[in-house]
């Protein structure tokens, strides 16, 4: 009878209890994994090498304001700036006013030079540039509405008192699987009677070193003008939006710790039950000469085994979230489920810690009972 076999036998003695404990630990770890992943994705928007080179120039006052179109050429001449495009949030509605997706008025020649990770075929890009009423959608958005190239899409204006009649000429692949659409800035500008204003500009820097310089130069250039700017990296800009949601970090963080603590309670109480039932056995083991250490290892080993299976269950359920359409549920705040390495570490670590603690506490009580006491315990 090896130690491993002994643990295995013991764990399977009460299959129902062991199974239920594994399930409850599994569900809690699944929840922990989901919470940590959501928090991670909200607070650390993905940054590939290219997104670190992108800056957003927005009005300093607030997003309710506008910037003159003339700024585009001035920004273009700033040293280190490689590409500039207008970026006007149109906030158009397609059929359902309760489901919003991103739709921007942009410069079709420039936008894919700035968002280089969004991939479009050269033919479709040419078609987009060539037609003033053309639009392109991300593959995920086209899938949601079953759009095909050649479809006419009418976007109802909300901020702008115009509806836009657009022709879908292509789709682009977005690795972040966001739902977004681009159309010609000039088309919107014309429909509005040429006010020549844009809500923001998107800028691509030549290299990392120029990013802070560009930030300062642009804001300096327009300081004390009627339309001051606030230039920040794309990541900072996105985080600004997340900060608007409220104190996410505190809320999710405190919930996650409650979950872990609850899980610990459950595991400790189950293991305590198990050990209580076996007090006499512990006494017998001691009588025939097993050392305290061995007995501790036996009980802790069993608890570890149970929580490890829980870890496997939890991570398995977490991985299955990759198949869920999170974009729709979270209104686009979370588009994919990709746990970071630290999340895996935290989930597995919590599982192990729970196994250790829940096994150790009752086992310690058990080995410290005198043999005669333990023999007399009826339970």
């Amino acid at each position: 009878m090896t130690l491993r076999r002994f643990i295995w036998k013991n764990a399977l003695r009460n299959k129902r209890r062991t199974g239920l404990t594994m399930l409850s630990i599994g569900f809690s770890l699944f929840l922990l994994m989901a919470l940590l992943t959501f928090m991670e994705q909200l607070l650390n928007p993905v940054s590939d090498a290219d997104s670190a080179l992108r800056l957003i120039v927005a009005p300093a006052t607030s997003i309710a304001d506008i910037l003159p179109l003339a700024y585009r050429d001035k920004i273009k001449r700033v040293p280190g700036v490689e590409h500039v495009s207008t970026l006007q949030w149109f906030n158009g509605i397609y059929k359902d006013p309760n489901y919003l997706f991103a739709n921007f008025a942009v410069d079709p020649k420039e936008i894919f030079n700035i968002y280089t990770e969004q991939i479009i075929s050269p033919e479709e890009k040419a078609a987009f540039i060539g037609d003033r009423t053309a639009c392109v959608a991300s593959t995920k958005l086209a899938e949601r509405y079953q759009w095909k190239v050649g479809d006419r899409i009418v976007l109802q204006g909300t901020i702008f008192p115009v509806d836009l009649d657009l022709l879908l000429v292509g789709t682009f692949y977005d690795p972040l699987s966001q739902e977004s659409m681009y159309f010609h800035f000039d088309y919107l500008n014309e429909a509005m009677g040429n006010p020549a204003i844009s809500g923001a500009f998107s800028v691509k820097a030549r290299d990392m070193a120029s990013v802070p310089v560009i930030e300062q130069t642009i804001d300096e250039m327009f300081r004390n003008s009627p339309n001051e700017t606030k230039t920040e990296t794309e990541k900072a800009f996105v985080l600004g939006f997340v900060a608007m949601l409220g104190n996410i970090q505190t809320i999710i963080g405190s919930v996650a710790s409650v979950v872990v603590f609850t899980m610990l309670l459950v595991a400790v109480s189950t293991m305590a039950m198990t050990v209580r039932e076996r007090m006499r056995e512990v006494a017998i083991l001691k009588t025939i000469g097993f050392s305290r250490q061995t007995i501790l290892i036996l009980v802790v080993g069993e608890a570890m085994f149970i929580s490890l299976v829980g870890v496997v269950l939890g991570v398995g359920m977490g991985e299955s979230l990759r198949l869920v359409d999170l974009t729709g549920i979270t209104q686009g705040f979370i588009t994919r489920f990709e746990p970071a390495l630290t999340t895996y570490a935290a989930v597995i670590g919590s599982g192990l810690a729970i196994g250790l603690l829940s096994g150790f506490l009752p086992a310690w009580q058990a080995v410290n009972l005198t043999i005669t006491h333990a023999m007399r315990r009826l339970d």
Partner: protein
Amino acid sequence: MLVPIRYNLRYLVVRWKSTCLTAATFGMVVATFVITMSLAEGINRALTKTGHPLNVVILRSGAQSEAQSEILKQQYEIVRNAPGIARDARGEPLAPPEVITLVNKPRLDGKTSNILIRGVDPQVYTMRPALKIVEGRALMPGMREVIVARAVSQRFQGFGLGDQPRLGRGTFTVVGLFEAEGTAYESEVWGDVREVMQEFDRANYSSVVARAIDRDAIGRIREYMDSDPRLKLKAKDEVEYYAEQTKTARPVQAFASFLAMTMAIGACFAGMNTMYANVANRVREIGTLRILGFTPTAVLASFLLESVCLALIGGALGCVMALPINGLATGTTNFDSFSEVLFYFTITPSLMMKGMLFAAIMGLAGGFPPAWSASKQPVLAALRQV
């Protein structure tokens, strides 16, 4: 004939250690559920309390919120003379124009957020009676000054009484702090409509809020706006207008449900464990109950009841644990107006009832399989067990 409930309760007391642990587990789940739901409740409350039943908000027909709307000055004259609008003491229509804009300002925690600036006409105090000046004084028309919601002055930098925040192109002096019975106005800064338009370079109003003579007149105002093709405007019942904005709380509610459901499943398994152990320890007692003439159904009911009691003790514990958070203020962004909306964690009696109901359901779900196996025990074999 049912088994007396005293039997179950006394058992729970005798086994106080495991009772406490299991109740604590249920308690944590219920507390988490109540706290996250109180977030959503707080957002909803701030928005649903805001509308006045006789007020009508008039917007550009495509706009989803005041912040997106625009009403031209020449349209305003037509709007205020619509049929069905009440008149003030001087015989003027009660239909003040408003302009809405945002400023992005740093909060005390260092992060920035958008504050809604509302340019108002003196008639507004009749329209929105919830507003009370609590420090300083009211606005003087035609002055470059603002009154600030007390909650905003406590959350953002530089909006205290006497401060001079820069809004638009100029600076405004904060002359008063107000409260508004927990409505959405408690997240706003108000200034004189013409001053705000000038400093923010606005040629037109954003919206008009009109007081209808009675509930029937609301329909008449709405028809008038729809029927005049010159206008391209729509009238919305103010109560409905704010109720629609409660979709801001939807992600929070979805999050709360996901959280509560997942935790509840985990807790059910834990509760099941405890109840199974309780049943296993009482094989002989169950046999005795059966010999005394209690039916299997009575045994089933008895154990189910015990499990529900256990869960309800946990539920009560959870509600008590959640209570301290009631009334804490926090903020999120209303994505209709894109401005910060302040709200208070709100734990209502009905929310606590929901939490208890939730606990009872967990108790039933976790208690049924063990209770079932208890009722199915063969009587004689049970008595023979040591």
